[in-house]
């Protein structure tokens, strides 16, 4: 029985990658442990090892091919006794999509040779394209309305959120020697999620500092350095680990200015990925936005697009106040237009209307924007025009934008990739009650993750996560349709 080699998933969020190099050729004999290929993800180049023994019968995806989907059959190995020449390529479980960017020279996958063959014995495995987080990412799209702060005709550059965050840090570090970056794997490893890529080379190890695995300690060291007059950027590998450090974020950083009667500053940025990633289970999938947003003395920012990530991180670094900057791992690799403007800084505390509409207001932030926009598209097809507000800053919250939209649409649905209880959505509902009651024609509804720890099983995870269809349902409810 021939063995199919499939494009491996090399990280929890990897959905596709580049087959950078084959280290074997057809006819070569491989043994378990031999390195057969190099595969580039958006984060790293990984070596792909053989697990089985045999002869490479066919290479189905040529080296240099971009955007090879996880699960695509990339080669066939003939086992002992099989004639490598007689094996034919099977149906790929999912064919790679040619990259729009024009990699026309990459050799496409061979067409399936025998379409009628037996189903893949592994077909019972969950299809990665059907996962809950895949659905979230699939919903990512460009925000529909150009940022009013950007002059018309400004040149735009396609940039990933990951690059935008890095650019923001690099630009600010060039301008101010007091700024340094500290965290686990931020320097030599170039960032666990490659957000700090290149910073060590440019700024050296005085300003880009690898720490031991010691969140409470380095959060405290950063906070103390800020009190002493520096401007630290503290990266948490994920905000799940910041639970070990939340004492310094809240008790030491957030309260300092007040407790000292305005005498002692604490200009620090705590940043890192927040919210659900893909299939990483309960302890690595949580949205801490409501926790931090409940604390006076903190600024809390949770951007969606790359442009907002850049403009708001620059503003956060410049702020004299402590900032919790919540990124999203699923968005790191997503590309958006970023204005090619020198020193693109956005105001903290301003929401953004990313889609105008007159029938309902959908209030959301971070990856929830993608889900809301997906739902808005579906609703438009049914004649309901939703206005989508990306809060961007969660503390201080831009109530005015929310209330003005409510006055126009008379309905609010909150969309949040997180738990419902004591959520940002709950806060929006309270604000609508307290300050916009007369404008409400329907109760405020919340569409969120399910109120359970994040399960691991693919189907359960999908069931637990925020879904556009639920947003559509909620909107129809408040529109009495």
């Amino acid at each position, binding site marked *: 029985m021939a063995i199919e080699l499939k494009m491996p998933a090399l990280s929890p969020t990897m959905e596709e990658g580049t087959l950078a190099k084959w280290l074997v050729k057809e006819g070569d004999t491989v043994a378990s442990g031999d390195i057969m290929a190099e595969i580039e993800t958006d984060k790293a180049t990984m070596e792909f090892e053989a697990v089985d023994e045999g002869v490479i019968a066919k290479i189905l995806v040529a080296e240099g091919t971009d955007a090879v989907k996880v699960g695509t059959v990339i080669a066939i190995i003939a086992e002992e006794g099989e004639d490598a020449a007689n094996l034919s390529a099977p149906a790929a479980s999912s064919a790679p999509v040619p990259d729009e960017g024009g990699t026309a020279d990459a050799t496409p996958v061979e067409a399936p040779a025998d379409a009628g063959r037996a189903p893949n014995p592994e077909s019972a495995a969950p299809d990665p394209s059907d996962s809950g987080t895949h659905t979230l990412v699939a919903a990512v799209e460009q925000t529909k309305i150009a940022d009013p702060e950007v002059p018309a005709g400004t040149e735009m550059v396609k940039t990933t959120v990951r690059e935008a965050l890095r650019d923001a840090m690099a630009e600010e570090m060039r301008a101010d020697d007091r700024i340094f970056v500290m965290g686990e794997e931020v320097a030599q490893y170039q960032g666990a999620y490659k957000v700090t890529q290149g910073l060590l080379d440019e700024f050296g190890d005085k300003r880009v500092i690898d720490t*031991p695995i*010691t969140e409470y300690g380095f959060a405290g*060291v950063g906070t*103390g350095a800020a*009190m002493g007059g520096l401007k630290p950027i503290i990266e948490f590998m994920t905000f799940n680990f910041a639970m070990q450090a939340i*004492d310094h974020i809240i008790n*030491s950083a957030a309260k300092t200015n007040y407790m*000292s009667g305005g*005498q002692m500053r604490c200009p620090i940025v705590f940043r890192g990925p927040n919210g659900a990633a893909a299939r990483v289970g309960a302890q690595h999938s949580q949205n801490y936005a409501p926790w931090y947003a409940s604390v006076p003395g903190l600024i809390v920012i949770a951007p969606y697009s790359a442009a907002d990530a850049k403009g708001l991180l620059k503003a956060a670094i410049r702020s004299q106040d402590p900032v919790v900057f919540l990124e999203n791992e699923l968005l790191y690799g997503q590309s958006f237009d970023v204005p090619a403007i020198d020193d693109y800084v956005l105001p903290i505390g301003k929401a953004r209307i990313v889609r105008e509409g007159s029938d309902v207001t959908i209030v959301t932030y971070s990856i929830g924007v993608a889900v809301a926009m997906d739902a808005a598209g579906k609703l438009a097809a049914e004649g309901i025009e939703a206005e989508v507000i990306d809060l961007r800053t969660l503390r201080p919250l831009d109530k005015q934008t929310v209330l003005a939209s409510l006055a126009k649409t008379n309905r609010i649905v909150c969309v949040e990739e997180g738990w419902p209880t004591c959520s940002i959505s709950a806060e929006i509902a309270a604000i609508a009650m307290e300050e916009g009651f007369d404008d409400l024609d329907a109760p405020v509804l919340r569409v969120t993750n399910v109120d359970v720890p994040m399960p691991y099983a693919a189907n359960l995870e999908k069931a637990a996560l925020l879904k556009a269809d639920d947003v559509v349902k909620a909107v129809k409810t408040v529109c009495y349709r």
Partner: protein
Amino acid sequence: MAKAVQPRGEEAEAPPATPNRERPQQPVRFEATKEQLLEFYRQMVLIRRFEEKAGQLYGLGLIGGFCHLYIGQEAVAVGLQSALEVGKDSVITGYRDHGHMLAYGIDPKIIMAELTGRAAGISKGKGGSMHMFSVEHKFYGGHGIVGAQVSLGAGLGFGHKYKGDGGLCLAYFGDGAANQGQVYEAFNMAELWKLPVIFVIENNQYAMGTSVNRASAEDQLYLRGESFRIPGIQVDGMDVLAVRGAAETAIEWTRSGKGPILLELKTYRYRGHSMSDPAKYRSRDEVQSMRDKSDPIDAVKRELEAIGVTEDEMKAIDKDIKTIVANAADFAEQSPEPDLSELHTDVLVETY
């Protein structure tokens, strides 16, 4: 468990234990001039009288909440901080912070006014006993979470090194805080990065009501840095000259770029953990015996007498201090409370 077996009769004579790395010199007791000794006396009496007055004001209801007095521990703050340069070297401590502020030359009036929660207090009345700061003096608080100041102090030391300003950070914590995990996270980074930090354990024998022996597997707390290669020195914290001598050694070590050092100051607090502590965990005799035999102010008095300072000279200082403390208390009682509008100020620095 298997042990390496040494063949009998072939044992080489054990070489004397030599440290595998450089260690600081054993400190020598400080030789103070008459003026220095008088100044130590003055500062220690100021702290004691100030704290006694604070206790009194607490009893009168003028000071609320938690109030942790420093009585008995005066030699520590005075001995250590007299060796620092105010405005260059930073100091950070926990919530038992009044003495450290006074020892850094901060005006007793604005400290007392903070204790009474008045607008003229150093934190505008918004911090209280546990949360006082003077950025001008490089006194960074005043922290209420046990052990937090150790990581923060490592960060202040990081800042000194980053800026190359030649300063160091003196980070105080107690025997109770010495069991907090983040202390060791901070130790590790401080030594790894050779940060200019003097870690000071004020071992006053009791973490609230729990004695060191009931809480610490290794009760010789000066050894707590050894596994991070931070040298530790145990010091008689009731002898201001021994403390100052240890400060000299620690400062020399730290300023020369050798990284952090740990001092354990054996001291004693006469009062309860806070004003509301009935201190049932120790006997009256124990406290009285400490007062009689080891009082740090009495010890300085004896030093002064030995070099011929008269009773009258000391009384003149006492009188002076009495006036300062009385004025501070009057000021703290008479100053107005913060305006209600202050409730909403200083939450954030900027407006958004």
